[in-house]
């Protein structure tokens, strides 16, 4: 199938960078090493693949894993009408990933959201501030160890 050909090609092109390649439920997915991101992304953006759109960029917290966070990128190729999912693991003690703002402008706010909610930092991001929470907010609310009912009101509450 088409999916398997692109996965095979990527594995051959980046034998060290691509850790795993599969197509669960027909969705092409590659798992890469964190430091290979800036190598693989420009390759995917150029011909013949032309993944011109960054559909989404998000993060998942797996507290039980050794490398706690998993970044997930969803790319879309308008030319080939094809999607690709890229995953990479990020350890908590060095939660820094290379920024993709120079490739896609929409990565700017998406990365700010991930930074706000998970505390993952992005090297090379032009303006890494919180996006949703207020500036005085302590912690990162979508981390699994953030207390469910912890409140940080901006004004003193009546009761």
């Amino acid at each position, binding site marked *: 199938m088409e999916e398997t050909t692109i996965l095979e090609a990527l594995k051959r092109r980046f034998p060290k960078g691509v850790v795993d390649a599969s197509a669960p439920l027909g969705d092409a997915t590659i798992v890469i090493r964190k430091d290979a991101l800036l190598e693989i992304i420009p390759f995917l953006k150029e011909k013949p693949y032309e993944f011109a759109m960054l559909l989404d960029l998000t993060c998942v917290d797996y507290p039980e894993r050794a490398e706690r966070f998993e970044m997930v990128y969803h790319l879309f190729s308008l030319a080939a009408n094809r999607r690709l999912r890229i995953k990479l693991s990020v350890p908590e003690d060095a939660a820094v990933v290379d920024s993709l703002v120079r490739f896609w402008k929409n990565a700017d706010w998406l990365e700010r959201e991930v930074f706000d909610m998970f505390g993952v930092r992005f090297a090379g991001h032009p303006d890494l501030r919180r996006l949703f929470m207020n500036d005085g907010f302590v912690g990162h609310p979508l981390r699994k160890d*953030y207390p*469910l009912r912890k*409140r940080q009101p*901006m*004004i003193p*509450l*009546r009761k």
Partner: protein
Amino acid sequence: MQGNFITTRLNAMLGWGRKYSLFHYPFVTACCGMEYMSAACAHFDIDRFGAGWTRFSPRQSDLLLVVGTISQKQAPVLRTVYDQMTEPKWVIAFGACAVSGGIYDNYAVVQGVDQVIPVDIFIPGCPPQPEMVLDGLIKLQDKIQKTKQDWRWKKQRS
């Protein structure tokens, strides 16, 4: 005794006047707004109860309708809007989110607007039916009629 008669009648008259001339300010933040619109427009028509005037300025209104989810970031805004309204003023919490935070029991949402401002009437429901809104409005009118009216100009003189 004559003086008392006049005072109680005046109190009742002020209440009557106030309960049938509620100018409301809709603080609409979420999907309950659709239900607010249907309650406010021709089908259910809150104008029948004298609350037809929607004022989009808190300074000209005396009924604050908090319609929808209030996040922690919006709480200071809601407090400012409430503070800008002139006395006498009343507040209706419209829908489950405004009443208690609703399904949003999380870091971002105020668990009931009564944590931020005093509330007179709570209308539950996700979203409440227009009939419930009308019921809440009538209950508020009862409340206004029964309370001792704030007779501000007299208070200041005495």
